[in-house]
């Protein structure tokens, strides 16, 4: 099996790229996707540690993180579609007020 530390290192790099994306973009959907990328990087670290220690808890945490990410995407996309229908834009600069 491949050395788990390499998988963890790849997770760190993916996390950095996702963080760059959240800084870089104004489009809310792209920011949502970059957050998904960061969650996946964290999952990679969980799996690497689980493979190293032979501990199954890392897998359980990964499964929970995937389920929570699915819920987050559903809610986030609903909020963005609602915002688009009221403001005709999803730029994060326009999302500065909580009500009309």
């Amino acid at each position: 099996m491949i050395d788990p530390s390499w998988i963890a290192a790849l997770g760190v790099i993916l996390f950095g790229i996702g963080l760059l994306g959240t800084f870089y973009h104004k489009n809310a959907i792209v920011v949502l996707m970059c957050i998904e990328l960061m969650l996946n990087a964290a999952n990679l670290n969980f799996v690497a540690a689980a493979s190293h220690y032979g501990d199954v808890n890392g897998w359980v945490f990964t499964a929970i993180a995937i389920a929570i990410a699915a819920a987050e995407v559903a809610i986030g996309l609903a909020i963005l579609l609602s915002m688009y229908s009221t403001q005709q834009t999803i730029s994060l600069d326009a999302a500065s007020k909580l009500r009309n």
Partner: protein
Amino acid sequence: MTFDFETLIFVIVSGAALVGAIGCVFAGRVAHSLLWLMLTFFAVAALFLMASAEMLGAIQILVYLGSVMLVVQFGVMLTRRRIQDVESLPTLNFISAAAGVGLFALVLALLREIMGHSMWDSDAVGAPTTVEFANSLFNEWTIATIVLGTLLAMAMVGASYLVRDERLINLVWDLGDDTVAASPSVGMPIRRTRPTPSETVEVSSKLGKEEEEE
């Protein structure tokens, strides 16, 4: 480190993951960005397989690529074209350059911490099996699994509440126009909950006048 076949596969898969991630950040459109992200998720699923986590690889493909990314793609495509254009990327000024350098330094520091951590000194025990995963999930983490199911149900209800369309004309569309015209007192009054842009302008100008009068 011996350069065997598995290392070669790892290099290819991790390269695909990095290319997908960079493409996701720097793609010109949201739809293209999403496709690059799906490449990254496939590569991450392959990495799960390489770490002997077959169940998680299957979950990754089924949940992320099968449903979540499909939902996001539908959300992007159902809206108008304007939502797809990546709007005005920030110009490179001093603050963003400093943020980029800081981010790079953060990644390097994290890499150094992780690769040099003492946990890798001990010998690898070997990955757990899927049977252990199932036993742990449904015995040790039962409450967490139940709470997770409740959370997902609440998220689905909340999402459908957020994107609801409460116009009466859509609620009673199968009753025909006569029913609505004959009994206007039934249900909510007919009105558009989402004003057109011209109405928005009128209302906001009226509001502005009222505020001025006050």
